[in-house]
């Protein structure tokens, strides 16, 4: 399927940009006229991935976060990439409650992404950084639009 729109942004890995990133992606997603709960899911998943880049990949020392999003008639894909430290054991990192972040982190970021989006794929290596690719299918398409009924 061919995408109907595309968005790219590169932002410094600072915490003030967490809000900016989720706002931009959800504004972009709104072109597909999604439901409010779908927008909320996308915002939350983006927030998780971007926060991970800031805290884990770059360890609070800054760097760049690359966000790319595509719209299709029935779905949105969002790719969030860093050039930080990478993840040794991806399966383990994605286990609920696993964290290397100490007392203030719950280890639920990946669980949130997985339950709020329809697919989450992680590519990572020690020297290449991490790319999280997520897809959300917008149910509006198969449930029908109430306006059209």
């Amino acid at each position, binding site marked *: 399927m061919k995408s109907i729109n595309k968005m790219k942004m590169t932002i410094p890995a600072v*915490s*003030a940009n*967490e*809000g900016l990133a*989720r706002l931009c992606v959800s504004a972009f997603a709104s072109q597909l006229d999604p439901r*409010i*709960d779908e927008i*909320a899911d996308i*915002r*939350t998943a983006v*927030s*998780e991935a971007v*926060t991970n880049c*800031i*805290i884990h990949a770059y360890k609070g020392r800054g760097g760049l976060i690359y966000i790319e999003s595509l719209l299709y008639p029935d779905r949105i894909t969002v790719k969030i990439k860093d050039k930080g430290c990478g993840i040794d054991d991806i399966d383990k990192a994605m286990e609920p409650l696993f964290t290397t972040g100490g*007392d*203030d*982190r*719950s280890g*639920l*970021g990946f*669980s*949130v992404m997985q*339950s*709020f989006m329809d697919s989450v794929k992680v590519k990572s290596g020690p020297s290449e950084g991490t790319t999280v690719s997520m897809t959300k299918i917008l149910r509006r398409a198969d449930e029908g639009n109430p306006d059209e009924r």
Partner: protein
Amino acid sequence: MTQCYALGTLTVCLDGEIDHHAVRDIREQVDISINRHKPSKVIFDFENVTFMDSSGIGLIMGRYKTLSRYGGIIEIVRMPPYIEKVMKLSGVSKIVKGLDRAKAADKGEQDRKEQ
């Protein structure tokens, strides 16, 4: 965010977007109050919260750990439905009070006043 302490209870009224960026300040201020008062109960009021991710879960779990060291408890009230989704996933409802009653409050029942 506003905090108020009375009769052993610290009430923290959160507002806006609770992410990693916002949590830093909130945590610092709440921890100052907890250390000062050693409250037997901390109530987090979510009425004016518009967004929360796992950073908010970390905030609550962290305070839960501190309080449980001396037998204090945590209660959550007036949780909007879209934030409840993140809460449910975390299993936080097993360690804090009030998640069911938060729903009742949504329906307009001022059950907090009954206590």
